[in-house]
C-alpha cells in the first residue's frame, strides 16, 4: 500500500484567490513537511484542505490509497474520519473549558488516569505548569498558542497539521520547543505538516518542503534540494539564499564539531545534541575569500576551504560569489573587496569561515 | 370514595351555585360536585368533543338544544331553570342617575363608554342589543359601546371605572361585590326576548344518576328559591 498523502487539489474562493495544492507527504513514520511561503500564499488553505475543513473544488486528496477528498466523485471525508491533529492559526481554544479540559478534549477514549497523565506530560513539555485550571481568556497569547499545540498533539493522531505553531513565542522558548517537539514527533513516529514563514524553523524541523507562492506550489521535495537548487528566482527569494548543506557529523571534541560535507571537512561550534546528521548553514555574509596560496595568518578563523568561483553576480552593493568547495558555497562580499582582489569566475580561492559562524542544525 | 359530578356552568351562575352546592351536599353527602364555570359557547364546543362533564348549565337554552340536535344529548334531559334579567348598572359614585332616568341614562353625557356583552355570541349581549333596538337607542349608543367577551368581563369594565355604564345581568348586579359598589335599574322585560337559561345532560355523562338528581334538586322549590336569591327568576316571573 502506498503510504503517501497525495494532494492534487484546487480550492477556489468565490471572489477570492484560487489555491492549487499539488504535493505529496510521506505518511510512513516520522517526517516533517514544511509549507513555506509569504503571507496570503495559501498555506492555511492547504492545511484546511488536508484537514477536511474545506471542500476540494477540483482534484483529489488521497491518503495511503484511501480517498479523503475527490471533487469528481463527490467524496469528502470529514475531519473526524481523518484522524488528525490540527493547530489553527487562531488557536480556537474552547473558551468554556480549562486548559486541562482543552488538552484532554480529544482523549475521550482514554481512561481518566491515562488522560490525566497525558495532559500533565503536555503541560510539562509546553512549560505550562500551574496553568491547568485557567480558562483560555486568562492566558497570555503565547500560552494560548502552546495549549493549542498541546491539544493537537494530545491524541497522537495519524497526521499532525500545525499552522504557525510558534509565532507567539519568544526566541528561547521557540528554540526549546522546536527541539523537544521534533524529539516527541520522532518518538511517536508522527508525520507532520508544518506551516511556517521562519526559515530557521523550517530548517530545524523540516525534512521536506513545499514552497507556495500566490496560491501555487513552486517547488516541493527534500528540504536540502530546495535550498540547494531553488527551481526559480521566486523560490530563491522566498527561501532566502544561504548555503544549507547536509553533512555527517564526524566527531565532537572540546566544543568543536567536525562535519564532513562531501569531500570537505567543516569545523563548527557544537550546538549540543548533535547526532549523526546535521544541516550546515552558512550565511554568505560570514564567508571571506582569499586568493589561494596566501600564507594563512594566525587568526581564529578555523575553516579554510579551497574552491573555485563558479559564478559571480552583483547584487546591489554586494557581490554574490558562488563557490565550489566540493559542495556549493555562497559568499557575499562587498563590491570593493571584489575589485581589490580582482576576482573573476573560475578563480581558485580559499573560503575563510569562523567555526563559530557555522550554524549547525541537528537533523536526524 | 365519593361519586364525582362534573358540572359545566355558565359564568353568571357562580354565586348561586356555591349555595346550591352546599344545600345539595346535605341531601347527597356521597356526591362531590366538581364545578367548572365558563362561557357557554366554549362548553358547547368542548362538549361536542366529549368533554367529561356530566351536566351542562348553559346561560342560553340554544346551546343545550344544539347538543340535542347534534345527537350528543338526549332531548328528554333538556330543562330550563331560569330566565335571565338585564339591568343598567353604574358605579356608586357615578353622576348618572340611573334610578330616575331609566333607559335614558344611556344617553346621559357622562355615559361616554357603555359596556355590554358581545351580541354576536354572548346571550346577555344578544338580549341587550335587542333591547336597545327595540327602545330605539341602538343608533345613539352604538359609538359608545365597548364589548365584553362575556357578561362577567362586561361587569369588570364598569366596575373598574373604565366604562361609565353597563348593561349587565341581574344575577351579577346582585353579587355582593357589585351590590357594594354600584347602583342599578332593571331593563324592562318586554324590551328583549326571553333569555331562557337551560341545561342538558350529555350522552357521554359518566354519572347520569347524580346529574339527574342535581337537576331535580335545581328545579325543586328549594333550588329555585336559592336561584331567585341570586337574580335567576324561573318562568319569567
Amino acid at each position: 500500500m502506498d503510504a503517501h498523502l497525495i494532494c492534487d487539489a484546487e480550492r477556489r474562493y468565490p471572489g477570492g484567490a484560487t489555491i492549487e495544492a499539488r504535493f505529496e507527504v510521506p505518511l510512513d513514520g516520522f517526517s516533517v513537511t514544511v509549507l513555506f511561503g509569504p503571507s496570503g500564499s495559501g498555506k492555511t488553505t492547504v492545511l484546511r484542505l488536508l484537514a477536511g475543513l474545506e471542500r476540494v473544488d477540483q482534484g483529489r486528496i488521497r491518503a495511503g490509497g484511501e480517498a479523503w477528498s475527490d471533487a469528481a466523485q463527490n467524496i469528502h471525508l470529514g475531519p473526524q474520519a481523518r484522524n488528525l491533529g490540527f493547530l489553527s492559526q487562531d488557536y480556537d481554544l474552547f473558551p468554556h473549558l480549562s486548559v486541562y479540559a482543552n488538552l484532554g478534549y480529544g482523549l475521550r477514549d482514554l481512561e481518566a488516569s491515562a488522560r490525566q497523565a497525558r495532559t500533565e506530560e503536555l503541560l510539562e513539555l509546553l512549560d505550562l505548569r500551574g496553568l491547568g485550571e485557567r480558562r483560555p481568556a486568562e492566558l497570555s497569547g503565547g500560552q494560548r498558542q502552546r495549549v493549542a499545540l498541546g491539544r493537537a498533539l494530545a491524541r497522537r493522531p495519524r497526521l499532525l497539521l500545525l499552522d504557525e505553531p510558534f509565532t507567539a513565542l519568544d526566541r528561547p522558548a521557540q528554540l526549546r520547543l522546536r527541539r523537544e517537539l521534533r524529539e516527541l514527533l520522532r518518538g511517536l513516529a508522527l508525520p507532520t505538516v508544518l506551516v511556517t514563514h521562519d526559515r530557521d524553523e523550517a530548517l530545524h524541523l523540516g525534512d521536506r518542503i513545499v514552497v507556495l507562492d500566490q496560491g501555487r506550489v513552486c517547488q516541493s521535495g527534500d528540504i536540502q534540494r530546495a535550498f540547494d537548487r531553488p527551481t526559480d528566482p521566486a523560490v530563491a527569494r522566498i527561501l532566502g539564499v544561504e548555503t544549507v548543506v547536509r553533512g555527517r557529523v564526524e566527531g565532537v571534541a572540546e566544543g568543536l564539531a567536525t562535519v564532513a560535507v562531501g569531500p570537505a571537512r567543516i569545523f563548527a561550534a557544537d550546538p549540543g545534541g548533535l547526532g549523526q546528521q546535521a544541516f550546515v548553514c552558512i550565511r554568505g555574509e560570514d564567508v571571506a575569500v582569499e586568493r589561494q596560496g596566501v600564507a594563512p595568518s594566525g587568526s581564529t578563523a578555523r575553516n579554510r576551504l579551497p574552491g573555485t568561483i563558479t559564478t559571480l553576480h552583483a547584487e546591489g552593493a554586494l557581490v554574490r560569489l558562488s563557490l565550489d568547495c566540493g559542495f556549493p558555497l555562497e559568499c557575499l562580499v562587498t563590491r570593493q573587496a571584489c575589485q581589490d582582489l580582482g576576482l573573476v569566475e573560475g578563480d581558485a580561492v580559499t573560503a575563510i569561515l569562523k567555526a563559530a559562524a557555522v550554524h549547525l542544525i541537528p537533523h536526524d | 370514595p365519593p361519586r364525582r359530578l362534573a358540572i359545566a356552568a355558565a359564568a353568571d351562575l357562580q354565586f348561586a351555585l356555591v349555595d346550591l352546592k352546599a344545600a345539595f351536599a346535605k341531601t347527597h353527602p356521597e356526591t362531590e360536585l366538581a364545578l367548572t364555570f365558563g362561557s357557554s359557547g366554549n362548553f358547547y364546543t368542548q362538549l361536542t368533543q366529549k368533554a367529561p362533564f356530566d351536566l351542562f348549565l348553559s346561560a342560553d337554552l340554544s346551546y343545550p338544544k344544539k347538543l340535542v340536535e347534534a345527537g350528543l344529548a338526549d332531548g328528554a334531559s333538556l330543562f330550563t331553570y331560569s330566565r335571565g334579567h338585564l339591568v343598567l348598572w353604574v358605579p356608586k359614585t357615578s353622576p348618572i342617575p340611573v334610578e330616575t332616568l331609566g333607559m335614558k341614562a344611556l344617553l346621559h353625557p357622562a355615559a361616554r363608554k357603555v359596556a355590554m356583552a358581545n351580541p354576536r355570541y354572548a346571550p346577555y349581549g344578544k338580549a341587550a342589543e335587542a333591547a336597545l333596538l327595540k327602545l330605539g337607542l341602538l343608533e345613539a349608543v352604538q359609538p359608545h359601546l365597548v364589548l365584553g367577551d362575556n357578561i362577567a368581563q362586561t361587569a369588570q369594565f364598569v366596575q373598574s371605572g373604565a366604562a361609565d355604564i353597563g348593561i349587565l345581568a341581574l344575577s351579577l348586579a346582585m353579587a355582593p361585590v357589585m351590590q357594594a359598589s354600584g347602583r342599578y335599574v332593571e331593563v324592562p322585560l318586554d324590551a328583549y326576548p326571553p333569555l331562557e337559561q337551560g341545561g342538558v345532560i350529555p350522552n357521554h355523562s359518566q354519572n347520569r344518576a347524580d346529574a339527574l338528581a342535581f337537576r331535580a334538586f335545581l328545579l325543586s322549590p328549594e333550588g329555585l328559591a336559592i336561584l331567585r336569591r341570586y337574580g335567576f327568576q324561573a318562568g319569567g316571573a
Partner: protein
Amino acid sequence: MDWQAVRLSVQLASLTTLVLLGLALPLAYWLAFTQRRWKFLVEAVVAMPLVLPPTVLGFYLLMALGPRSPLGWLWERAFGHTLPFSFEGLLLASVLYSLPFMVQPLASAFAGVERGLIEASWCLGESRFRTFVRVIVPLSWGGILTGLVLSFAHTLGEFGVVLMVGGNLPGRTRTVSIAIYDQVQAMDYGPAARTAALLLGVSFLVLTLTYALRRSQRKPWTLI
C-alpha cells in the same frame, strides 16, 4: 373578511414592536453588561409579564389604566379620553405584555458579543453608545431578529389583554385575533377559518420575508 381588523392588528403589532425595540435596546444592554449584584432581580421582573394569564394581566391593567388610577386620570386630563378602550391603551398594554419577548433575546445576543471587539471600538475613540450602535447591535443581528419576530407575532396573536383593555371596538381596538375569536365564539366556523388563514398568511409572509431577507444578508454559514 375583516380587513379593518387586519390593518389594525398589523398597525398595533408594528408599533408595539417598534416601541419595544426602543425600550428593550437600552434595557437589554444594561442587563447584558451591568455588574450590579441585583441584576438578576431585574431579569426576573422583566420575565414576569409572561407568567400572568393574559386576561388577568388585562384586568390588572384595566385597573391601572382606568380613570380611577393616577395614570388614567392624568391621561384623561391631558388627552380628553380614557386610556382603556383606546389604541394608545392597547399599545401600552401590548408593550408591557410583550416586553420579555424582546428583552431576553436581545440581552443574550448582546452578552455574546466578543469583548475584544468592543474594546477595539473603544480604543478607536468610539463611545459606549456609538460602540453599541456600530458593533454590538450589528453583531447581535440574530438575536434582534428573534426579538422582533417573537414580539411582532406575539402581539399579532395577543388576545386576552387586548380584549380586556381594548373593549373590542371595531376599527379602533378590534384586532384580527379578536375578530377570529368573535367568529369562533359565534360558531361562524367558516369565516373564522378564513380570517385565521388570512392572519396566518399575512404573518407567514412577514416572517418569510424577514427570514429570507436575513438569508440574503448573511453569508451562508453551515457545518460544511
